[in-house]
């Protein structure tokens, strides 16, 4: 410890101006001057007590380590504790400072002190004064309430409260009633408007209907019903059964039955006749259309014996084979013509037919079409059209041609070229080898069932075997019928 330094430090510290400055500044000054901590402490010990206000904030035993405490943390503490002393302190500091030279740091200090004191005042005010004010206000209000409650007796107050409540309730009810009345009125008004709108629309519809009627008349259509006038009829009948498969599709339906019949696709609904919509609406309302009669359609004699057939069943065009078709048709047409002629004579109709048109109108083909078809056939190289002349050409065809040769030729002649191969194949399958075709169908069905490949039974033996097998089935069909049918079919081929 250098005694000289210490003495210098003592002299420095004894200076009144220095005495007014904070301890930190003194310490830092001395440190800057190169004194050691011991020397500084010794100097401080020798100098009388440091000033009050600053060290008050410092706790007693923190002289050694209180150097780094920031000033700002000290000052709020000061501000909150005592208002007056802190207010006075800056003033005191300022007064002490004015004696010495006016340093910028002193000015800064002063400004800082002022600001801090102001902030402190504000905080204190906020924390203490405002709550006091609030509580005072509450007290006043409470006193008022108490006063109002105290001025009246307890019983009358209850009654009054009840009365007041009743009054308010009545007032509220009146309000509600008024509001609902207003709503009703507005609803009625809306209804009126709506009805007017509907009337207008109905008028427009009527106009459109009359217009379409006029158009139809112009077109010369004399048949009954009014045609459709409206574009989109969506009958959203709630009672209709919704489809299971396509739940999303909205169907237009035209039956009031509890299941929709054929419906139309969502985007383009088929426009239904107007009278249809009327009837639908009527039914949905529960009214029955007026023109329905009560009809008893039960059989008068449920055990009525069935008649014997007058004529034998006719072979179908596709069953008999191509060449047969024309011949059988000729036979049939002649039969029917003869039969018809006799009928006509029986019925007393004038027989308008002359030799040329011995065939009724429905058998005559339009000449134009026949020509076109002939042209087409020429182009295609085939002639598939049956005309009345054909029987004459083919009258030499025997009734039961051999199955293999003739149908192929007939197919080759009569069918279009591009389908010739297919037709040949099909004909072969169908006519020449019926069992294979049938077996193939059976095979297909078996495949779909079992998922495997089933060998087709070749030959007619397989066919008859299958039929005879199934003849034993308990499906109610008489096996006798089966065998007779089999024989018929086999004969046909």
């Amino acid at each position: 410890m250098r005694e000289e330094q210490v003495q210098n430090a003592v002299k420095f510290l004894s200076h009144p101006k220095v005495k007014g400055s904070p301890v930190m500044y003194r310490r830092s000054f001395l440190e800057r001057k190169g004194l050691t901590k011991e020397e500084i402490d010794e100097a401080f010990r020798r100098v009388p007590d440091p000033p009050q206000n600053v060290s008050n904030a410092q706790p007693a035993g923190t002289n050694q380590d209180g150097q780094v405490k920031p000033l700002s943390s000290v000052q709020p503490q000061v501000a909150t504790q005592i208002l007056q002393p802190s207010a006075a302190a800056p003033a005191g500091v300022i007064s002490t400072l004015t004696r010495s030279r006016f340093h910028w740091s002193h000015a800064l200090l002063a400004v800082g002190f002022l600001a801090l004191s102001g902030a402190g005042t504000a905080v204190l005010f906020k924390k203490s004064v405002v709550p006091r004010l609030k509580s005072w206000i509450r007290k006043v209000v409470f006193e008022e309430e108490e006063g109002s409650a105290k001025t009246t007796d307890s019983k009358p107050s209850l009654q009054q409260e009840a009365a007041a409540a009743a009054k308010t309730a009545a007032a509220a009810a009146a309000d509600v009633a008024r509001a609902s009345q207003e709503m009703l009125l507005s609803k009625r008004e809306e209804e009126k408007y709506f009805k007017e709108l509907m009337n207008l629309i109905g008028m427009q519809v009527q106009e459109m209907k009359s217009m379409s009627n006029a158009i139809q008349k112009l077109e010369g259509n004399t048949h009954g019903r009014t045609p459709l006038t409206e574009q989109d009829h969506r009958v959203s009948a709630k009672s209709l059964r919704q489809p299971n498969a396509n739940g999303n599709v909205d169907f237009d339906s035209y039956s009031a039955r509890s299941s929709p019949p054929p419906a139309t696709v969502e985007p383009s609904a088929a426009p239904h006749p107007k009278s249809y919509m009327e009837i639908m609406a009527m039914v949905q309302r529960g009214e029955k259309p007026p023109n329905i009669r009560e009809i008893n359609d039960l059989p008068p004699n449920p055990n009525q014996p069935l008649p014997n057939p007058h004529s034998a069943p006719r072979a179908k065009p596709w069953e008999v084979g191509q060449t047969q078709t024309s011949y059988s048709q000729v036979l049939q047409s002649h039969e029917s013509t003869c039969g018809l002629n006799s009928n006509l004579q029986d019925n007393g109709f004038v027989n308008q037919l002359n030799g040329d048109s011995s065939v009724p109108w429905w058998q005559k083909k339009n000449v134009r079409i026949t020509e076109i078809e002939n042209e087409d056939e020429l182009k295609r190289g085939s002639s598939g059209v049956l005309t009345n002349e054909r029987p004459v050409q083919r009258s030499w065809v025997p009734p039961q041609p051999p199955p293999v040769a003739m149908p192929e030729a007939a197919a080759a002649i009569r069918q279009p070229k591009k389908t010739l191969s297919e037709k040949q194949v099909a004909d072969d399958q169908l006519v020449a080898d019926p069992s294979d075709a049938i077996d193939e169908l059976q095979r297909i069905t078996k495949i779909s069932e079992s998922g495997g490949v089933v060998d087709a039974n070749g030959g007619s033996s397989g066919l008859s075997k299958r039929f005879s097998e199934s003849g034993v089935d308990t499906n109610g069909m008489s096996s006798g019928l089966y065998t007779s049918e089999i024989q018929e079919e086999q004969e046909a081929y």
Partner: protein
Amino acid sequence: MPVFKTPFNGYAVKFSPFYEHRLAVATAQNFGILGNGRVHVLDLSPAGPISEFAAFDTADAVYDLSWSESHDSLLVAAVADGSVKLYDLSLPPPSNPVRSLHEHTREAHSADYNPVRRDSFITGSWDDTIKLWTIDRPTSVRTFKEHAYCVYSAAWNPSHADVFASASGDCTVRIWDVREPGSTMILPAHEFEILSCDWNKYDDCVIATASVDKSIKVWDVRSFRVPVAVLNGHSYAVRKVKFSPHRSSLIASCSYDMTVCLWDYMVEDALIGRYDHHTEFAVGVDMSVLVEGLLASTGWDELVYVWQHGTDPRAP
């Protein structure tokens, strides 16, 4: 071409397989919504006009009918109250019907007589079932219940005696063999309800389906993933499809767009004829088995037209 006006809305028309001048029409009052029905039996006369041979009233709408293939005077009618009525034309109307078979729990929508065995017929109904009947039995022989929704149409295979197909609102067509307990094939033919199906008379594995999606698809049941042909041209749902008995690839169809169209599905441009004589939904169409090219159609405009293919149905 003659026209016949029915008092009720037409639903189906079928030519007789015995007499080429005879056809039957199924009609329903009030569009089939609610009301009576009537079966008309009409005769074509060579002079022109159509005359009515007989008419039978029913309590409910008649949706479809089918001529017997074994008896020339028998007629099967599918009635909307679920009953199937048998009419005998050789008896006077007061003695008719000779049978009323009531087993369907919902509307009977289609009837088809077996053209090969000629002893049985099937009826399709909105109760999701198809029933097999013979004319001599008072009860059904079998009931086929697999569809999930209304069966709109059932058709026998013209070549195989025990095979038939059914078209349903569950968007599938099922192929059945009466000797098998269940369906033998399921064709998910369309995305929408399938209203009608018919077999190719000349190719026993080809079937045509008509749907609400305005298209007709032709399928080969041997390779049923992809249709053989898709026929577009109708602008609304196609109600009925019928293969020609005379030409292997000719199809007639009628639709809610009020037209009857003729198609050849083997040809590139399939639509070969279009008749728009109806003024309301065209609901029934048939091609005569006995007379090639003879067409008949009926619709909700209460008219029955009979004409030759290539002629104008409305021409006098």
